[in-house]
């Protein structure tokens, strides 16, 4: 019975993927991509990876979809024509079919898995994914937080010199008493609570800094889009502190581990739980602010015409 559910889900995923790539029009493609992301999140739950499902739904479908939609709106300002749909490309289709076939062959050719009997060593937290992310593979997560920062800096370099002093993103025009403004007042308190809860509960149950930070970023974006909060300027120092808080806390924790004799980024067992919590809070703040700034984009001025 459950096999039928998986089969239907996979058929839906493939159908939506085809619609994303072959559909007419960019907007249609973006909307189908968001649907694809949500179906992927369901697939992750079926694969017993709830943390990944949360991350895919929030980041993969949600924030990436918002990013693309705002980019589409921004492009519609600059470009007056919509690119004509391309014709069907047979050699590329054959090559991609071959790629899929090669991957399928690789799946069947892989050696049989060894059934694991061991469990993770005690890590201070109950959620194994959080333990791996912040304790055993902390190096990867530290570099990932720095990669986020690097992408933001790269994005800020796209701003024109004349716009550098403006506020981030495009100016929003929102009716003061309208639906969007009301939504911007109703959602952020609930969203803030959900985001903080996701960060807090990530130690023992599915959740964590990335998922909670993304929900907080979404709350910030809704408030900005509703015109209730004006995006900051690039030069604002408080926001820069928030941006680097996560990597800094992580680095300090890692160096503290080295100073205490356990090794760089090794959390000694008695303080592992507390250290992971402190790092998660710092990471969540940084991730939330970085994601908001990534989606808002570089500062742009008013329309020149």
């Amino acid at each position, binding site marked *: 019975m459950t096999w039928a559910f998986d089969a239907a889900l996979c058929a839906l995923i493939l159908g939506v993927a085809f619609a994303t790539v072959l559909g007419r029009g960019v907007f249609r493609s973006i909307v189908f991509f968001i649907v694809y992301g949500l179906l992927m999140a369901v697939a992750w739950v079926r694969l017993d990876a709830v943390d990944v499902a949360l991350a895919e739904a929030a980041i993969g479908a949600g924030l990436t979809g918002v990013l693309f939609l705002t980019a589409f709106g921004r492009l519609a300002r600059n470009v007056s024509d919509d690119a004509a749909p391309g014709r069907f490309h047979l050699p590329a289709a054959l090559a991609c079919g071959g790629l899929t076939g090669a991957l399928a062959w690789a799946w069947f050719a892989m050696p049989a898995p060894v059934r694991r009997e061991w469990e993770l060593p005690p890590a201070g937290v109950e959620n194994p994914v959080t333990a791996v992310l912040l304790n055993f593979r902390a190096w990867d997560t530290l570099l990932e937080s720095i990669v986020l920062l690097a992408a933001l800096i790269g994005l800020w370099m796209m701003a024109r010199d004349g716009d550098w002093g403006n506020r981030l993103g495009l100016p929003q025009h929102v009716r003061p008493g309208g*639906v*969007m403004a*009301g*939504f911007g007042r109703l959602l952020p308190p609930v969203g803030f609570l959900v985001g903080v809860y996701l960060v807090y509960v990530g130690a023992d149950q599915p959740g964590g800094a990335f998922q909670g930070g993304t929900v907080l970023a979404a709350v910030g974006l809704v408030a900005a889009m509703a015109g209730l909060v004006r995006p900051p300027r690039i030069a604002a120092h408080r926001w820069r502190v928030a941006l680097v808080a996560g990597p800094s806390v992580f680095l300090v924790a890692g160096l503290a581990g080295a100073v205490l004799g356990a090794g760089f980024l090794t959390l000694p067992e008695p303080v592992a739980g507390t250290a992971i919590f402190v790092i998660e809070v710092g990471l969540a703040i940084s991730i939330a602010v970085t994601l908001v700034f990534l989606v808002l984009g570089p500062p742009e001025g008013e329309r020149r015409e």
Partner: protein
Amino acid sequence: MADIATIAFTGLGLCFFIAGTIGLLRFPDVFTRLHALTKADNLGLGFITLGMLFQVEGWREMALLVLIWALTLLAAGTVSQLIARAALKDRSG
């Protein structure tokens, strides 16, 4: 007993979703489609949530399910209003 209730309510919710999708595909313009979509889909989701309520134990999980439905209602209502207003502006502007 609880399973029968779940199947009944979820089936009812599915009927509403099918009705909304038929409206989406068959209605001529944006406003009628929005109307069909919002009414049918929100009600459909409500029935599915009602069906799920029979499967969970504890007030906390039930309250969370109802919260999910309320948030979806809020988001869907806001989005359909915004789409309708944009379509109105497109049509008259």
